[in-house]
Structure formats: C-alpha cells, structure tokens
C-alpha cells in the first residue's frame, strides 16, 4: 500500500449505487473538492491580498525613503559646497575691492594677503593679479611664476565676460589637483584687474568625506565632461573619467535610477552647483539600500508560507473529516434503506403467505386423496383397480407435487434475490411472476388481470429483484383497493428509444386528492389499522429511483388509481460490486 493510499479516505473511490438520479449528491469526492476549494479560497484569498498589498506598500515606502534620503544628502552637500566656493569667491571679491591695484602691487602685500587667507580659510596655494590685458602683474606663492600672459585663455575671457570664474580641477604645473577662482574688479576710474587664486581641490574631498554614504555608497564631484573632480570610492580617482552617464542639467536636486556596467542597479542623486562647472553626485547601490527590505520580505514570505501551509492543512483535515462523517452517515443511511427494503420485501411475502399456504395446501389435499384412494383400492378384497387406474392416481400425485414445487420455488427465488444485478428482463415475466402469487386470490375475488405489454418493448436491463418488489408492492396496493370483481391492468409502452412506460391501473376505491401528494412519503398510511407500515410506496419510490426510473400516480376516488413507471431500457448506473451494500 503506497503512502498516499494509506491516507486516502474511504469515500474517495466510493460510487453510490442506490441514489438514482440524485447521484451528484453522493459524489463525495466532488463534495470534498468543493469544500476544500471554497474554504481554502475564502481563507487564502484575503491572506494573499493582504500580503501582496503589504509587499507593494512596504517596497514602495522603502524605495521612496531611499530616494528621499539620497535627495536630502545631495541637497545638503550641494549647499555646503556652494557655500565653500562662494565663501572663497566673496573673500577674493572683498580683497580685490578693498585693495587697489596699487596696493596689491606693493611688494609683500600679496604675500601678506595669501598668508591671511591660508590662516583663515586654508587651502589657498597662490594668489596673482592680472591686468585688463591678461598679463600677470604680481604673483605670490610657492612657484616662481612671473609675467604670464593669460589673455588668450578661456578663463580670462570668462572673467572679463561674467566677472568671476571657477575652473575645473586640473593638475597644472603643480602636479596636484587644483582649482582656480578668479574675480574681476572694475575700479571707479581706470582699467579693471583680476585677482586669481589657486586652491587645493583636496579641500572639497575633505569636505565630502564625512558626508559620504556608508556601505558601498559614493559621493563625488564631476564636471560637465564627466571627469572626476574628487576621488571616488568605486568610480576612479581625480581627473579620471567616471564610468557613468553625466546627468542632464537641472536647477534642483534630482534622483535617478540607472544600471552600471556590471548590471547593478544604482540610485544616483545629483545636483549642479551654481556658478561652477561642478556636478555633485551621490551614487548608491540599490541592492544595498534595499537590503533591509529584502530581510523584511523574507520574513513576510516565510510568514505567508507558514500561514498558507497551516490553513491548507486545517482545510484539508477538516474537509476530509467532515466529508468522511457525511460518507459514514450516508453509508448508514444506505444500509438502513436496504434493511427497510428487505423488511418490506419480507412483509410483502408475509402478506402473501396465507395465499401461498392455500396454494400449497390444495395440491397437498389432492395428493392426500389420491394416495388415500390408492390405499382404498389396494385394501379392496377383490382388487378391481386396473394397473392404468393406479398409474393415473400416481400421475396426478406427481402433478400436484410439481404444483407445490413451483409455488415454493417462486417464493424462495423472490425472497432470496437481494443482490443488485442488472440483467436483461422481459417485463411480462416479472408481471406474470408477481401475479402468480395472487392468482388464486384474484380468482376467488373475481378480479381480472389484463397484461397489455406492447410487443415492441425489448428486454430491459434492470434489477430483477427490485422490479419484482416494485410490482409486488403496486399489485398488493391495487388488490387492497380493488373490490371483488374489479380489474387490474398492466400497460407497457415504449415512449422513446431508451425508455418504456409501464402503468399499473386498477378500478378500485382510488386515493382522495388530499392524500395523493403524500402517498410516496414514508410512514404515510391509511391502512395503519390493517397493519400497513406506510413504507410500501416510499420504498417503491426509492427502488424505482435506484434502477434509474421515475414513478407517478394519478387517482380519482371511486374510479381508480394509475401508477405510471418510466424505466430506462439501459440504465446508466455505475455498478460497483464493492459498494453495492446488501442487507440481510
């Protein structure tokens, strides 16, 4: 026995044989499926929905939280950097405004200013003054640079044009990353001049370092060409090209998602720093950002799987238990039904017993007389009996014995037939067999029976025992209703290719209209005083259903009653030997 079979409930392969057209009510596997489907559906759909909604909401919340955080980081950093740059530019602007060209050109003054700047701001490398023609006038710093002509350089043109200039990071002569800030000053009289300062770019990096996001995140500055202006953790060193697209210009902080060359999903926050060529970029690995969510998701899914398993186990167990209970109850019902059917059959036989006894007693009486006569003849002193006379008596005895045997055999075969077996049956045989039990009673009461079965009715496949019982019940009822000299008619007609209609018609007392609806109900009887159980017609109704037929009744008090059976020629009843329960 396989593992599954051990758990297979008893109802799984059960096929009801006694439910007739209501077979679907007793398809326990179907009931089980329905029960499991409905309960599991009702229990699981809300769980799934809630889990899905929670999943979506949490994921969205965490994603937008990440975007918000990145955006805030970039905004704050931009503000810091802008301030850093502005602060220095304003300092230079103040200096250039506060010191006239003459003062600036004074020996030692520029060096003094540079020292002050280094002391107060830090990061200033050198200072130089350029005249309106682009020629370096004064220089103060670590290098020996004099008389430089900047007139053709782009930064000079920009300063002339816009009043100030902030350069990209470059190595220049100094072989370390620097930026240049230059401001123009237009004195009230005379030509303008420019103060140009070189600052260590490292200063920005140091500013960014404490702000950089943890765990694989990156915070750096690029220029419009995508060249790194500060070192980055993962995307190269200063002045290297960053392997990421340069984000499009925007006045505000923006956050976008993109994939890098390794296929990792990145969350990039960026901002253009005003009045500078710099773009601040914060790069975060989305995978890392979503890690807390993955953990939460794992917990959610684990919870879901455990819940679903628990629900399914309970649903399966409860459904199996309930359907098993129903099945057991139904088995008991079927067994009880068979008991009642059998009891009804025995009761029918009991009702016939008196008649049958008479039937047997008559031939016995003949045997008695014939045997007596033979004895009489043999006792005569002068035997007048001829051999042929004695022979005639013996033949008569044998014929009487045969009569008895026929009656007994019919009775026994009727009583014993309890197993459900479908076989081809001539409906006329059944009727004649049943009438055979009552032929003497009919004779004595002057009841005539007419069997009018259309010749085109083929043998029908049915259960002989059940059919006999059905007709016996109907005939018993008819005999009870008929008065002496009445008529009992059996009428058989083929009504379609696969069905026949058999009517049992009597011209007896009939059934009152108020009773006719109840005649097939159990325990309804108008003959309780005469020993009626009220089960005969209800059992007949059940039996007709079991062989796949239907039964109806019409009656008019004083005119007669007509029971109409519609029977299938080939009933589509699944026969299952294991399940055909036989009582008795």
């Amino acid at each position, binding site marked *: 026995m396989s593992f599954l079979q051990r758990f297979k409930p008893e109802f799984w392969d059960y096929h009801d044989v006694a439910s007739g057209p209501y077979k679907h009510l007793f398809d326990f596997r179907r009931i089980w499926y329905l029960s499991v489907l409905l309960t599991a559906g009702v229990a699981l759909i809300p769980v799934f929905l809630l889990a899905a909604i929670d999943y979506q909401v949490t994921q969205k919340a965490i994603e937008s939280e990440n975007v918000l955080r990145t955006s805030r980081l970039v905004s704050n950093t931009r503000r810091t950097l802008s301030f850093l740059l502005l602060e220095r530019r304003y300092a230079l602007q103040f200096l250039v405004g506060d010191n006239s060209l003459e003062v600036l050109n004074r020996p030692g003054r520029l060096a003094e200013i540079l020292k002050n700047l280094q002391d107060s701001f830090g990061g200033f490398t050198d200072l130089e003054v350029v005249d309106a023609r682009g020629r370096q006038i004064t220089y103060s710093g670590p290098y020996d640079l004099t008389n430089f002509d900047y007139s053709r350089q782009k930064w000079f043109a920009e300063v002339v044009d816009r009043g100030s200039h902030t350069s990209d990071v470059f190595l220049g002569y100094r072989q370390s990353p620097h930026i240049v800030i230059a401001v123009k000053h237009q004195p009230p009289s005379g030509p303008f001049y420019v103060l140009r300062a070189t600052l260590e770019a490292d200063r920005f990096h140091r500013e960014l370092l404490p702000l950089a996001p943890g765990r694989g995140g990156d915070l750096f500055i690029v220029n419009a060409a995508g060249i790194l202006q500060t070192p980055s953790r993962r995307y190269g060193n200063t002045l290297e090209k960053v392997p990421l697209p340069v984000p499009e210009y925007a006045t505000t902080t923006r956050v976008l998602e993109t994939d890098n060359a390794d296929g990792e999903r990145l969350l990039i926050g960026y901002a253009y720093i005003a009045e500078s060529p710099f773009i601040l970029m914060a790069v975060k690995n989305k995978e890392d950002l979503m890690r807390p969510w993955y953990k939460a998701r794992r917990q959610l899914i684990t919870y879901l799987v455990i819940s679903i398993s628990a629900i399914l186990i309970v649903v399966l167990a409860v459904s199996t238990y309930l359907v098993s209970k129903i099945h057991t109850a139904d088995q008991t019902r079927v067994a009880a039904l068979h008991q009642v059917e059998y009891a009804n059959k025995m009761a029918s036989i009991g009702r016939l017993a*008196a008649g049958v*006894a*008479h039937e047997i*007693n*008559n031939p*016995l*009486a*003949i*045997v*008695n*007389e*014939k045997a*007596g*006569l033979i004895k*009489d*003849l043999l006792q*005569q002193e002068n035997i007048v009996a001829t051999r042929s006379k004695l022979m005639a*008596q013996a033949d*008569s005895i044998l014929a*009487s014995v045969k009569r008895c045997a026929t009656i007994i055999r019919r009775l026994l075969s009727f009583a014993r037939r309890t197993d459900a077996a479908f076989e081809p049956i001539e409906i006329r045989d059944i009727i004649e067999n049943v009438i055979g039990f009552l032929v*003497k009673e009919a*004779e*004595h009461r*002057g009841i005539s029976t007419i069997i009018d079965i259309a010749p085109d009715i083929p043998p029908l496949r049915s259960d002989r025992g059940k059919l006999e019982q059905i007709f016996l019940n109907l005939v018993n009822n008819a005999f009870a209703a008929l008065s002496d000299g009445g008529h009992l008619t059996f009428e058989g007609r083929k009504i379609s290719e696969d069905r026949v209609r058999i009517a049992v018609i009597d011209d007896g007392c009939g059934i009152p209209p108020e009773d006719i609806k109840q005649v097939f109900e159990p325990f309804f009887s108008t003959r309780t005083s005469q020993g009626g159980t009220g089960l005969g017609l209800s059992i007949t109704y059940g039996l007709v259903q079991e062989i796949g037929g239907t039964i109806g009744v019409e009656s008019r008090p004083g005119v007669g009653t007509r029971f109409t059976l519609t029977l299938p020629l080939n009933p589509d009843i699944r026969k299952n030997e294991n399940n055909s329960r036989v009582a008795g």
Partner: protein
Amino acid sequence: MKTIHVLLVDDEEDLVVTLAERLELRGFHSEWVTTCEAALEMLKHKRFDVAVLDIKLPRMSGLALKRKMEALAPDMKFIFMTGHGSEKDFEEGTAEAGVPNYLLKPIDIKLLVNRIVEMVS
C-alpha cells in the same frame, strides 16, 4: 340402511373426483361439481343429504353458497372444508356450521365419513 347422498363442491376437480370415488367405495352415493352455479343447478334436480363445501370458491364463498343451497333444500346438512385455515375463515366457519362440521384440508376420510354419518342419523 338407506344410501346417503353427498354433494361435493370444490374448484379443484382432481380433489372432488377422488373424494367422490373414495366415498363411493365406502358406500355413499356421491356427486361432485366445481362451481357454485353447477351446485345450485344440481340441487334443482336431485336431493342430497349432505353437502361438503369448500370455503373458498370462485366468485362466491362457501358460506354464501350454503345460504343459497339452504333455500333450495332446507333440510340438507353442511360440512365445510378449507385449505386456508386462516383465523377469520375459521371463526366464520365455526359460527355458521359449528366446530364439528369444519374440516381442514387435507381431509381425513375417516373423519369425514364419521361426520356425514353423525349428521344424517
């Protein structure tokens, strides 16, 4: 002694034929019929001392037949026989004929002869 005339009425011909023959062998004059009509018809032409009737006869019970026969032959005696032996029949039979005249089938011939002789004497 005068010969006793017996009329046998039963729907089983084999039974009445044999019974009649056995009564003949015992010195009775017996005739038989199988229907009520024939029995009544017979009474119109012949006289009988005793009638032996089956209780269950086609179309008419033995008791009903008895009443009709009594009208035709008021001093005739009756013996009933039955194979049914139901309580109801027995009660009716005894009420109508008295216990001694009610016989159960199969009939004991000695008992029948004794009854007939007792009734006639």
